[in-house]
């Protein structure tokens, strides 16, 4: 009887312990998700981001943004701060939309070149749709900057220089804001991006070390000042843009030069655009080392730069720039005539001199047959 009572008590104790353990596990489940999210967000910034940046595969980089963006962002539902990680995933995803907008633009230009208006109109519609998508994705990146670092353009945020991506995350987020505006204008304002971003971004760009980040902050500020007359603080923004491009070149990074090429193209400075693009080609041909740590950004800058050339070639030749060409189409100068300008001064050409008949024949090498008048040799 006593043994039976002890077994029952043991079983009850076991059941109570099991129940307490289950309750503990269930309550820990909510924290586990946040813990996982925090870990994923931190991993994305500290490892995924640098790893992706070291590859020059822009297509893969943008696809990673499209596919990972939703997954990373979902952790915000369990109170993980995903803002820093989402800056990169959003702007990467924007690169994909931008690439599609670029292709649609080239298709439109090609169709116009060939007189196919239906095709051109269809391409224009798609172009605007993709620009809108690029604007929205870029703006999402910018809004994550606001969340992570405060609204740009007021005071500089505290950027943790020990945690190296902070400066760059901030800078890339600012550039996303600028791109959001540009893409929205190309979309006819369909994305509704606020128009007051540029001056804020221009001021905020000063918070990032220009030399450390390849001249990109100063280039962005200068590009904005060129686009919005009176928005700057004086000085020569074109000179700043060119100096920034040169600084970027010295660090094997094309982003500032890409901004120079884009801004020149957008403002009708065709010769400047062509010269700036050609310089990039010269640098590549020289074999000088490119920035390997941020190869993705260097490759992306080259994509932006190349698109300007592609447009130039497509408008004039009906196809994009050849694979290794970094120059604009060379326009042949029209023949302006004037070949006969000097005729009155110089008169017509004198008649050819008659052969001298009494000159002795030239000595022939031994064995060479005698030539006839017609030039044919006689054996």
């Amino acid at each position: 009887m006593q043994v039976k009572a002890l077994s029952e008590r043991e079983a009850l104790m076991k059941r109570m312990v099991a129940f307490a353990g289950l309750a503990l596990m269930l309550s820990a489940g909510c924290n586990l998700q946040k813990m996982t999210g925090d870990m994923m967000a931190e991993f994305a910034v500290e490892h995924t981001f640098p790893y992706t940046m070291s590859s020059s595969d822009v297509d893969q980089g943008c696809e990673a943004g499209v596919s990972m963006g939703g997954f990373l962002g979902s952790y915000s539902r369990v109170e993980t701060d995903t803002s820093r990680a989402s800056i990169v995933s959003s702007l990467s995803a924007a690169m994909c939309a931008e690439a599609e907008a670029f292709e649609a633009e080239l298709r439109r230009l090609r169709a116009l070149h060939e007189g196919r208006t239906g095709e051109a109109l269809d391409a224009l519609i798609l172009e605007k749709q993709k620009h809108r998508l690029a604007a929205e994705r870029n703006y999402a990146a910018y809004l994550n900057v606001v969340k992570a670092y405060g609204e740009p353009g007021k005071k500089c945020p505290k950027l943790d220089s020990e945690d190296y991506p902070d400066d760059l995350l901030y800078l890339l987020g600012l550039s996303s804001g600028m791109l959001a505006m540009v893409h929205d204008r190309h979309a006819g304002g369909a994305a509704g991006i606020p128009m007051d971003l540029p001056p804020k971004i221009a001021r905020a760009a000063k918070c990032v070390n220009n030399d450390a980040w390849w001249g990109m902050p100063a280039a962005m500020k200068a590009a904005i000042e060129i686009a919005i007359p009176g928005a700057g603080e004086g000085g020569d923004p074109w000179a700043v843009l060119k100096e920034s491009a040169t600084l970027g070149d010295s660090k094997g990074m094309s982003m500032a030069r890409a901004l120079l090429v884009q801004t020149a193209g957008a403002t009708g400075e065709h010769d400047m655009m062509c010269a700036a693009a050609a310089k990039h080609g010269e640098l590549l041909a020289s074999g000088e080392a490119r920035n390997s740590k941020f190869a993705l950004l260097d490759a992306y800058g080259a994509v932006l730069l190349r698109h300007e050339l592609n447009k130039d070639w497509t408008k004039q030749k009906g196809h994009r720039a050849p694979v290794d060409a970094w120059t604009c189409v060379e326009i042949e100068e029209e023949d302006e005539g004037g070949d006969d300008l000097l005729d009155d001064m110089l008169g017509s050409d004198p008649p050819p001199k008659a052969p001298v008949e009494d000159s002795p024949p030239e000595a022939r090498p031994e064995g060479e047959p005698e030539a006839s008048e017609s030039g044919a040799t006689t054996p």
Partner: protein
Amino acid sequence: MNNVSLRISLLGLAALMLLASSGTAVAGEAKTLCVFDLSGANGDAFASMKEYQVAAAGWGVDFELKPYTDELAATEDFKAGKCDAALITGVRARPFNKFTSTIEAMGALPEYGNLKKVVKAFSKAKARKLMIQGDYEVAGIFPLGAVYLYVNDKSINTKEALAGKKIATFSFDEAARVMVDVAGASYAAADISTFAGMFNNGSVDACYAPAAAYGPLELHKGLGSNGGVIKFPLAMLTLQLVIRTGDSWPEGFQDASRAYAYDHFNDLVKLAKKAEKAIPGKYWIEIKDEDRARYEELFRDVRVRLRDKEKVFDKSMLKLMRKIRCKADATRAECSQERE
């Protein structure tokens, strides 16, 4: 060549022609259209011209679009023959067509609907002769948005309050200079790159600009806590497409171009209205009816002077716009007078 060979050759030629026409249309006449847009190829005006470019291809013109951020440069290049067509504001288009340029007369068109009526009238084939002045023709008028007066003090909301106030005024715009003078205000020379800075740093009491300038130029800084935007369009800014009559253009191009401008009027006004909505409500200064009437009288005085003395405005165009205003609201005081 014998008959069989000839037939084969002709068949082959016909087949080639058929292939060519099925896949590729013949490109139109190549022309350059110089587009003024403050933001160059990234701006709204340039973006809208991309659609125009596609439409023009259907009319037989293959436009190359060239962006200009400097309107004077665009105008000079057009005059010099570097552009076959130019898209410039009505003020700059004055030397090419005084009639169409007069659309931008101050206070002449208080609502977008009024401007639309004008553009509609000009889109008809019978209006063509009015679009031609000398060697030039206006082949389209596109809305750019209403111009508003930004003031650093909300009390500057009447004609009388303007007296003595400093207004940033574009030097190249004779009509604006006269307006400031007649209003009794003080003229402060400015251009597109300086006017916002002058307003924002307090050098002037007021400036004028379309709503699209508010965000990018941070005009809220000049408005501060006491300022506002007078909810009364000073003028309707337009972009006018100017071509040379002596150049060769496909048959019907000009009429098609003007009809296009009318068909797309609403799309462009939408952008302007979007920008107006972006100005916070607290800044808009509503004008009382009696003050509105005095503003309108001021504007009319200026228009009449610019018509008769400086000869800047066209008499017929002013008359047309008065007709439109009075048709919209016959109770206006001017409708019982014949000053325009």
